[in-house]
């Protein structure tokens, strides 16, 4: 494998605080050295891009893959392609597949399938309950031993308070975190959009914002009761963020993530029944979106996830209430996040931290950092270069982006996995 020298780029690694203009050398797939100016080995491949930033390969804390069971939507190979185009080199995969990841063999399978791509490390979540059905606890210990990174039922809320209590309590023994889809099931049942004037006008059954806060409030109390660790996924409302902020101040072991649609879009994106903008949780009112932006700035939100949910055309070409919720997010993760840098919400360092060091720390993995002697998982991007999202032309199979038509400032130029260029 040839050495790679990144020459005259901005090196940015929030994990170590590194932020300097200089060179970085990759040798034998590992990060060998960096500094303001390195010598150029004769045989090294030189990568030089004016104004580019080199950061750790992104760590996506939450994404659904089509495998196993939904290969018509997306395969792991196609997801890896989309991830590479988005600068993602490590991805935590949701377990509500078919079958659900509730068996140690499936955890090992997913890890191996990731390694086969050569471009993406897959960190499987294990199911909290058998089949993600919310009825009986899965074998959390065996799943953790096989390499499950944390536990969640994916897009399904663990609805029973008793079961959630048990899960938080039992997982504590294995040092594992329970990630919850925070949506009170009976309030959300049948809903297709945020309950609001817009849903009223469109005649769509609504999901009240309070459905999120109620679930968050309950699970904060159960976490306090058990001394366990909870993570709230794709938090989207002001009220829930207020509760999480308070719980953190109270010293309860609570973390959360959000996803680009919840700080970049609001409910108006559904327009006249645009099913690509039907997500779970639903896009909210702008006041909620603004609260998510504020929570990114003040550190309440611990990570930005792609919340990637591949769907095929038939899942989406339906009357709105019948269309399957979910949007793709791998390729757009960095660029949409950078919009918050350009608008002044967060610094570039903070933004990259939310996509690398912070999710890596939450998942307890060594990824998401620039460290000598470690595999060179790297993302090179230009923070100002402009491109337009176009459904149908995105890398990978799934094309159901809620950002269709959005012009974005910030482009991934290349992605390296263990020193090998996998994109660009």
């Amino acid at each position, binding site marked *: 494998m040839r050495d790679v020298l990144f020459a005259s780029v901005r090196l940015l690694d929030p994990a170590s605080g590194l932020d300097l203009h200089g060179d970085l050398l990759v040798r034998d797939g590992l990060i060998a050295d960096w500094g303001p100016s390195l010598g150029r080995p004769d045989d090294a491949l030189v990568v030089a891009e004016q104004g580019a930033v080199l950061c750790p390969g992104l760590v996506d804390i939450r994404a659904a893959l089509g495998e196993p069971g939904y290969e018509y939507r997306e395969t792991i190979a196609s997801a890896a392609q989309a991830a590479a185009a988005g600068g993602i080199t490590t991805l935590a995969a949701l377990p509500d597949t078919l079958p659900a990841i509730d068996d140690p063999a499936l955890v090992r399978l997913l890890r191996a399938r990731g390694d086969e791509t050569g471009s993406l490390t897959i960190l499987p979540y294990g199911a909290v309950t058998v089949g993600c059905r919310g009825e009986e606890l899965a074998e959390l210990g065996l799943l953790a031993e096989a390499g499950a990174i944390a536990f969640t039922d994916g897009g399904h809320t663990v609805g029973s308070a008793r079961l959630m209590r048990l899960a938080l309590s039992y997982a504590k023994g294995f040092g594992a975190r329970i990630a919850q889809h925070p949506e009170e099931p009976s309030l959300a049942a049948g809903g297709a959009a945020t309950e609001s004037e817009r849903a009223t006008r469109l005649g769509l059954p609504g999901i009240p914002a309070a459905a999120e806060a109620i679930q968050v409030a309950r699970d904060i109390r159960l976490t306090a009761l058990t001394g366990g660790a909870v993570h709230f996924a794709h938090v989207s409302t002001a009220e829930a963020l207020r509760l999480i902020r308070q719980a953190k101040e109270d010293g309860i072991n609570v973390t959360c993530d959000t996803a680009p649609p919840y700080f970049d879009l609001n409910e108006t994106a559904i327009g006249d029944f645009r099913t690509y903008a039907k997500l779970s949780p639903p896009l909210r009112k702008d006041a909620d979106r603004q609260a998510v932006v504020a929570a990114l700035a003040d550190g309440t939100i611990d990570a930005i996830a792609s919340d990637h949910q591949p769907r095929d055309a038939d899942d989406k070409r339906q*009357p709105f209430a019948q269309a399957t919720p979910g949007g793709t997010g791998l390729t757009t993760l960095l660029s949409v996040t950078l919009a918050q840098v350009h608008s002044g919400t967060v610094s570039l360092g903070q933004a990259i931290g939310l996509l690398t060091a912070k999710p890596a720390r939450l998942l307890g993995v060594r990824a998401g950092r620039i460290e000598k002697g470690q595999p060179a998982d790297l993302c090179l991007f230009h923070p100002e270069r402009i491109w337009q999202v176009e459904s149908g032309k995105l890398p990978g199979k799934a094309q159901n982006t809620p950002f269709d038509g959005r012009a974005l400032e910030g482009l991934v130029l290349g992605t390296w996995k263990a020193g090998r260029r996998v994109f660009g």
Partner: protein
Amino acid sequence: MSYRQKHLLAIEGLYPPEIGHLLDLAESYVLLNRSGKTQRDLLRGRTLINLFFEDSTRTRTSFEIAGKRLGADVINMSVSTSSVNKGETLLDTAATLNAMHCDLLVVRHDQSGAPNLLAQKVDAAVINAGDGTHEHPTQALLDALTIRRRKGRLESLVVAICGDVLHSRVARSNIHLLTTMGSRVRVVGPPTLMPTEAERLGIEVFHDMERGLAGADIVMMLRLQRERMQRGLVPSAREYFRFFGLDAAKLAVAKPDALVMHPGPMNRGVEIDSAVADDPHRSVIREQVEMGVAVRMAVLDTLSRGHGRNEF
């Protein structure tokens, strides 16, 4: 200005002159219909398909008569939505309709937005004959025509729409039409049957019939489906009738010449008392049905001319 859209999917978004144009044309069809004449050359050779994914004898029949009086070839298609993959049926049907060169497509569907989806896929002009809890534009137009003929105007009236507003596409279309034309709309019903942020539609919300009906020019009743009781939105039919059913006593607070309307079919003794429904001095419920045919003729006429196609 005449009507500027290719389809009729919703009242929301129409301009007063567009609504006025449709009503004026409908007015002329009322006269034609009463004279016993027809205009069979107008839509001769045109194909009108009534595509009903939800049962509705009266709306379908009304469109069928309207189409036939204008000389169109009318075909009724009823599609069951009980099959598992509803969306696939919808788009498969769209492809079939394109192959059959349908000119005018009347759609009734139990899902909000289904006609919008079809309109993207078919070549025909699409007329929404009621979609889920979204809109029922021809119902609002026929209600408006009924009101205009009786009251001489559509502006500065006080209209009370009573009952299950949450699930009513008739209410939504009427709210948009009447507020667009300059009337004051009130909605009256229990809070569990009121849509979220209803007041943001430019209307007043009441939970008490006496206050909601006080001084009203028009009292528009909505149908309450049994299913609402089963889902616990209303405890029982008798409780509903006690507080929200229209009877002579509740109607007494409205203006002396207030009209009573209902889109049908009525649940007598649930949302409306028979004595009121059948009162020839107050109830215009049968007249609404007559206006329905005229309004639908006007809509078919207008859309078949392709006014303003590609103007936007």
